[in-house]
């Protein structure tokens, strides 16, 4: 099947570049980009295959191929690949964004000694990520999921000579691994409950009716349906990968990686894999209805993360960290959309976000590149004059992220999330949290724009615009960020139709409905207020942050990321270390000690028996021997070798013999 080539092409490219030498920069980049281009073309073809499903009536077109992997007794464990509208859209986005970022990387990483290795890891990442997207088996998803994590680990720590980068890589891997243990257990539970890990398998898959009915009917404990238990465990994995609270700590640190990596992995694709996983497993999450325990949890976690991360972003000074917290916050929006039951809203925002956030990161990379590796926005300013292309494209990305009305994709996708959150029957709280986060987003992005591009340059480098190999991808992504708004408006909800298999029509009257107008009105208001406040405070930024002047202690807490890292260091990290020391202590003192004690006791016992031997048994034996020896000496003195002596004994003996014989005979 054609779609199996989509991940295999970049995988092969990764394998070949792994064997290349450091100096072979051009062949490595050419090979990787060619493979990625092929994969993108195939994704496009696959995407066209799924088109037309919107003409149907609620029937989603799915094609899949399953193949056996290993045998277990008389059964086989199968893996599979799946093509459906959900995956096809995601795959196209992933491959397209990857391709652009690979091209951009040629410029960005040109001078790096490990250029070849960089492209090898990028290609490995792309292969694994496409595997996650196109998998038809939770096991294959997990396999690719971990490989994506490996690629992320290798790329965050790409500049491994920097201790911070090495630490950030390890932190990312371990934090997500905590979540992945939940994912693993959820997967095992799913396997145990449904007997399969294939998503779709002609009615026998775990996302199909029979299995879902069985899982939702059974109760695990405390009234929790098995399906919800499984969903919650899988959500742990999703939350880890997507940087949801309380697993968000690794994502800002991951910015230690090269900027193309941040754009590709930690903004556009991998971090969205958690959202995609929940979307893929949505039938399990919603097996007990659209307000199941699992979905409610997802909604709350998402809403909280959206607000929490947006707050922290307000007080950051590193250009990439602001964007990282913004990513965490936007992923929270997507999770919220899933939690309140709208897969489409989440996926539209996911894809729109991928484009504009990749654009923002690449723009940030262009800025960092242009002012010689400076990342602190306090030392920037006035870059609009030096980097016009970067400025314009960055502004488009920023407006899309803030949700500036009508011409930017972020407006429509965020609006849709607010809309579905507003309709959630459980609580209105998440809606208000998300609305506040939307306001903060506009605010912190304006703050950043002002500090980076407005005013006059405060640094000491010589700012310059980046080469075309970097600015062309910026332009393409900016175009995508704008164009994505067309299929996401309520007037032509093409995405919705594509995902659910319903026909869509162009109908502008839907824009006039009261529900839409009220939410859109609110979000326009919020964006205006956010941008206005940001502009008002930061238009003349010089040295000190005006917010810090208003409320110093609060600003400090936010700048210190609300002390979550410190909290973890004091609790989880320390507990692990202490448990390790405790185990080692028990091992050395108690277990080995017991063995030594047993050894010592047996030595003591042997010493005692030695004493016994020596003074008890041996004493008797020795004295016997001594007696014998003495006797021997006496006898040997008789053996003098003198014939006279022998004759004397002989005669005495003969006389004695005669006496005895005589006595016996009488």
């Amino acid at each position, binding site marked *: 099947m054609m779609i199996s080539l989509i991940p295999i092409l970049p995988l092969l490219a990764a394998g070949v570049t792994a064997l290349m030498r450091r100096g072979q920069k051009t062949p490595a980049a050419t090979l990787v980009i060619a493979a990625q281009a092929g994969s993108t073309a195939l994704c496009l073809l696959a995407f066209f295959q799924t088109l037309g499903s919107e003409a149907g009536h609620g029937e989603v077109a799915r094609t899949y191929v399953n193949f056996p992997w*290993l*045998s277990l007794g008389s059964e086989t464990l199968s893996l599979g690949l799946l093509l459906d509208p959900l995956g096809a859209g995601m795959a196209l986005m992933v491959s397209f964004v990857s391709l652009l970022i690979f091209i951009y990387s040629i410029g960005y990483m040109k001078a790096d000694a490990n250029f070849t290795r960089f492209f090898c890891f990028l290609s490995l990442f792309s292969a694994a990520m496409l595997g996650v997207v196109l998998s038809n088996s939770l096991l294959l998803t997990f396999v690719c999921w971990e490989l994506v994590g490996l690629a992320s680990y290798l790329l965050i720590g790409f500049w*491994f*000579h920097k201790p911070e980068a090495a630490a950030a890589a390890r932190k990312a891997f371990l934090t997500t691994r905590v979540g992945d243990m939940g994912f693993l257990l959820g997967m095992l539970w799913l396997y*145990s409950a449904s007997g399969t890990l294939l998503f779709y398998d002609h009615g026998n898959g775990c996302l199909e009716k029979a299995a879902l009915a069985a899982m939702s009917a059974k109760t695990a404990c405390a009234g929790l349906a098995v399906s919800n238990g499984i969903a919650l465990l899988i959500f742990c994995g999703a939350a880890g990968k997507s940087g949801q609270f309380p697993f968000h700590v690794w994502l800002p640190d991951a910015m230690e990686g090269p900027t193309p990596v941040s754009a590709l992995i930690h903004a556009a694709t991998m971090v969205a894999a958690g959202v995609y996983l929940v979307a893929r497993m949505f039938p399990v999450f919603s097996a007990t209805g659209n307000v199941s325990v699992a979905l409610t949890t997802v909604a709350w976690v998402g809403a909280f993360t959206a607000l929490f991360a947006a707050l922290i972003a307000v007080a950051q000074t590193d250009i990439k960290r602001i964007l990282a917290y913004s990513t965490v916050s936007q992923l929270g929006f997507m999770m919220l959309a899933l939690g309140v039951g709208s897969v489409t809203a989440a996926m539209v925002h996911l894809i729109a976000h991928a484009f504009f956030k990749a654009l923002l990161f690449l723009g940030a990379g262009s800025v960092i590149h242009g002012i010689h590796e400076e990342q602190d926005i306090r030392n920037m300013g006035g870059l609009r004059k030096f980097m016009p292309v970067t400025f314009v494209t960055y502004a488009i990305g920023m407006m899309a992220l803030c949700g500036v009305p009508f011409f930017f994709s972020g407006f429509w996708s965020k609006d849709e999330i607010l809309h579905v959150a507003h309709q959630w029957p459980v609580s209105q709280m998440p809606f208000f949290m998300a609305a506040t986060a939307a306001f903060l987003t506009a605010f912190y992005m304006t703050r950043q724009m002002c500090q980076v591009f407005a005013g006059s340059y405060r640094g000491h480098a010589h700012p310059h615009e980046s080469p075309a190999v970097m600015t062309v991808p910026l332009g393409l992504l900016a175009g995508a960020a704008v164009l994505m708004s067309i299929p996401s408006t309520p007037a032509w909800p093409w995405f919705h139709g594509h995902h659910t298999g319903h026909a869509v029509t162009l109908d502008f009257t839907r824009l006039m409905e009261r529900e839409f107008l009220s939410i859109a009105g609110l979000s326009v208001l919020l964006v205006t207020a956010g941008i206005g406040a940001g502009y008002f405070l930061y238009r003349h930024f010089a040295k000190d942050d005006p917010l810090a002047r208003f409320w110093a202690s609060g600003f400090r807490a936010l700048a210190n990321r609300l002390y979550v890292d410190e909290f973890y260091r004091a609790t989880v990290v320390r507990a692990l270390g202490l448990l390790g020391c405790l185990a*080692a202590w028990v091992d050395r003192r108690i277990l080995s000690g017991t*063995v030594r004690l047993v050894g010592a006791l047996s030595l003591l016992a042997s010493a005692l028996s030695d004493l016994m031997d020596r003074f008890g048994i041996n004493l008797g034996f020795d004295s016997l021997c001594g007696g014998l020896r003495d006797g021997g000496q006496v006898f040997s003195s008789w053996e003098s070798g003198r014939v006279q002596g022998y004759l004397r004994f002989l005669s005495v003996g003969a006389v004695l013999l005669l006496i005895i014989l005589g006595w016996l005979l009488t």
Partner: protein
Amino acid sequence: MTLLTLIPFVGALLVALLPWHRAARAVGLASMAGVLGLTISLALGYDRVAGGIQFREQHAWIPSLGVDYFVGADGMSLMLLLLVAIITPFAMLTAGPGISKLQVALILLLETAIIGTFTALNFIHWFVFYELSLVPAFLLIRWSGTKASTAAALRFFIYTLLGGLAMLVGFLGIQIAAGTFDLIRLGEMGASLDGKLAAAFGSPSAGLLVFCCIFLGLAVKVPVVPFHTWLPDAYSEAPSSVTMLLTGLMSKMGVYGFLRLLVPLFPQRMQELATPLLWLALATIVFSAFTALAQTDLKRIFAYSSVNHLGYCLLGIFAVAAVPAGAPVARAAATNGVLLQVFNHGLTAATLFAFVGFLERRSGGLRGIADFGGLRAAAPVFAGLMGIAMFSSLGLPGLNGFVGEFLIFSGTFKLVWWSAALAAIGLFVTAVFLLNIIQKVFTGPLPERWSKFPDLTSAEILTVAPAIALMFVLGICPQVLIALFNTK
């Protein structure tokens, strides 16, 4: 079968008797190659459809006691023989060209004993080889001749010998009750053996006592926490190539003993005692992982990590024993997982110790994780290949370690869900200490003293390349191995 045991034995004699030092390595390698070739041909000739024990050879030895010379192999033994055939030359080559004649002879003798153990089907026959392996192992562990290595070797010897004696006592009891040492026949008795023991000794707890004796012997060998204290010293004091044999092969004799002796002979006892046994397995997994976290010596870390990985094997074995009927897929998954894990751990742990050996050779014996830093800059191939082995040990999908652990966990979860859930802690902690090693040894700034740290030589790359390649093959296509022992 007999030939398989004879090849390394004759090789050992030849090496020991030949006067030339230089030829020792070549002769050793040739006999190991012979073993490898023969094992592969046996594995290919094994009738997988029929399954069961094949290639049987049985001759009376001491008929009055029921002691036979009895060899044969099923899928499990063949898999282990393959492991032996691969790891032994790997270990010998790792030691480099400077290896002495006597060392080669001892390694061959050890290979003989291990092959004998994995093919014997009569207890006494099995036991002779099982104990025979101790002698060359003892001498090899104390090869460096330091006081510490002698103490470690002595502890290893006494500990294992005591375990072996306990086992011998147990089997004498069985012989008295059942009248045979034939493992196949004893296995067929299975459930009724317990009753026979009770009748023979006039006490219902006789069976339990015999079970405990055999368990103790095997628990020391694997080892199971808290019977593991001989291991870290032995693994860290022995030369790395010897540690490869200890962890790659000798620890498997314990797991094999569980599967060949304890499980078939005492199914009921295993089921009754399943909960405490599972707790022991969990203790082994979690305790050793945490202990590894606190170590600073690379060899000790990998030693505890080894205990941790074998803990998963025990988990799978005990979970299957806990639920003797039903859930055929889960049981098959756990059993196949255990066997895969045995092979994978042998391969991966041996490779890791090979790398430690290379590291020691370059650092003049230093192997503390704090002694290094940033080595990846100086030795990228070294760091890359050792990184692959570490990620295999960590259970990264796509490499061999994952498949066995996944199957064990999936089977165990279905059978005894809580034990799988708790064992996941071990998976996490393993990742912590392995990434610690990578961070401290390979990343960060390169210190001045290691700026000339040499990368792997081509000979070293060639030595580890087959192992690394196997890690990928078994990670991507585990069926090639599973097909050997999967029972329909």
